[in-house]
């Protein structure tokens, strides 16, 4: 456990010294601030649009941070060959994967908090009403980002960067569409197709579960029970992704 912590600290240090994350976060903040652009609308309309845009920006840039962060956390070690030395130290490969993920967790937590605080500050400044729903939506966006990070990290242990970027983005889009896919599949009668589709539906992460921001913005109450069970789903998915990552990393020859 201590070794995972040391590896995580090093990952966080790397992220901060490389400064690429700053740029992404800065971009996100500019985008959030630019929702001021909706000022030509009436105030009620403006509220919705500012919150909509900000949520979307936070999620999208969170996705970018999670994907590129996880990929670089693993592949920079491999490409720069630092991993040769690292793996001859008394750490297991499992330690390595978990340490990297814990590091990503802190990196994302810090960057997400910056964006979230900025967003809440903007709402407060513009006197836009907030309720617990706003925070529930933010929280679930964060869980979603953690799931994205675990998938990218897991893929990074056995694929090339380019493939990983394509696969992660693809999973991100598909993950938002599985719900629709299911609506369509529900209409087919072919059992084989249906079974296959159901399997895909279970295996692919269902990011739509986390997307309650559209509901929160129009004032639909989100029960805590829903937030908890979706968080459970997220944690479960992270565990699965990391196990797969550990499996492939342990079979990988460096």
């Amino acid at each position, binding site marked *: 456990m201590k070794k995972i912590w*040391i590896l995580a600290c090093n990952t966080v240090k790397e992220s901060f010294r490389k400064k690429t994350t700053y740029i992404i976060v800065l971009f996100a903040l500019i985008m959030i601030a630019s929702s001021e652009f909706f000022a030509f609308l009436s105030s009620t309309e403006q509220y919705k649009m500012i919150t909509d845009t900000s949520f979307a920006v936070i999620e999208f840039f969170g996705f970018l941070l999670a994907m590129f962060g996880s990929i670089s956390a693993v592949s920079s070690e491999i490409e720069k*060959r630092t991993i*040769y030395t690292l793996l001859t130290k008394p750490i297991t490969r499992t330690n390595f994967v978990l340490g990297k993920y814990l590091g990503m967790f802190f990196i994302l937590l810090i960057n997400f908090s910056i964006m979230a605080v900025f967003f809440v500050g903007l709402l407060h400044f513009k006197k836009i009403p907030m309720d617990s729903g706003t925070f529930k939506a933010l929280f679930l966006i964060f869980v979603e980002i953690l799931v994205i990070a675990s998938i990218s990290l897991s893929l990074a242990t056995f694929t090339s960067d380019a493939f990983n970027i394509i696969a992660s983005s693809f999973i991100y889009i598909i993950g938002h569409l599985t719900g629709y896919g299911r609506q369509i599949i529900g209409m087919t009668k072919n059992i084989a197709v249906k079974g296959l589709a159901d399997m895909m539906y279970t295996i692919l992460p269902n990011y739509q579960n986390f997307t309650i921001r559209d509901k929160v913005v129009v004032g639909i109450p989100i029960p805590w029970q829903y937030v908890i069970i979706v968080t459970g789903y997220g944690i479960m998915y992270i565990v699965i992704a990391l196990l797969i990552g550990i499996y492939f990393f342990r079979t990988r020859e460096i």
Partner: protein
Amino acid sequence: MAIIETKDLTKIYTIGRKRTVVGLDHLTLEIEEGELFGILGPNGSGKTTCLKLLLGTLFPTSGEAYIMGKTPYDVSMKKEVGFLPENPYYYEYLTGRELLIFYGKLFDMDKDALNEKIEELLNLVGLHNTQKLSLRHYSKGMLERIGLAASLINDPKILILDEPTTGLDPIGCRDTRNLLIQLKEMGKTILLSSHFLSEVERVCSRIAILHRGLLLALGRLDELMSKYKSSNLEDLFVKTINEYDEKIKSQGVAQ
């Protein structure tokens, strides 16, 4: 029992779907405690493959490898091993000192012992003045030396060095050689691979010559020299390899 041991260690790389390349062919070695053992061979002869198999970054196709009687997957074994990779690259965003702290922490060293050790090692490799410089600005020789310091951070019983003198100037080479002798006198077992012949000639107690993954010669330097009737290591090296190549060629013709 030998401190480092390989039994029929074989590694076959698969390239593409059908092509295979033999990286290491049934290597059986025993290295005793306190030895300074050199693995020699031209580029692509399987030296690095052998070291990587011992350390568990590669997985053998068949055969076994043990360090202190433990398999390469045993983490407790790694506590007693220091490794210096070929062309070492380190986290360029860290400073020299931070790098040593990072590795030291992975060995569960407590703060005071670690600081003491770091001071000692920085003086040993002569990087005391540049310890606060980030590794991005280190020269190749400095990287090699900080790498050596990093491999010694845990005061290992066994030191495995992959091409420790590439990239060093003659003075650096001499310093490294002296350091190796010093370490050997301290009772450490050292396994090094090299194609930098003159260096190895002077320090190794026993050598193994690898070529195309095969062990061609193994033994004390003077024994081998008299066996192959050569006056120095370079001569010995070239002779064994040429002998093998000719044998292969004639077999190929016979077939």
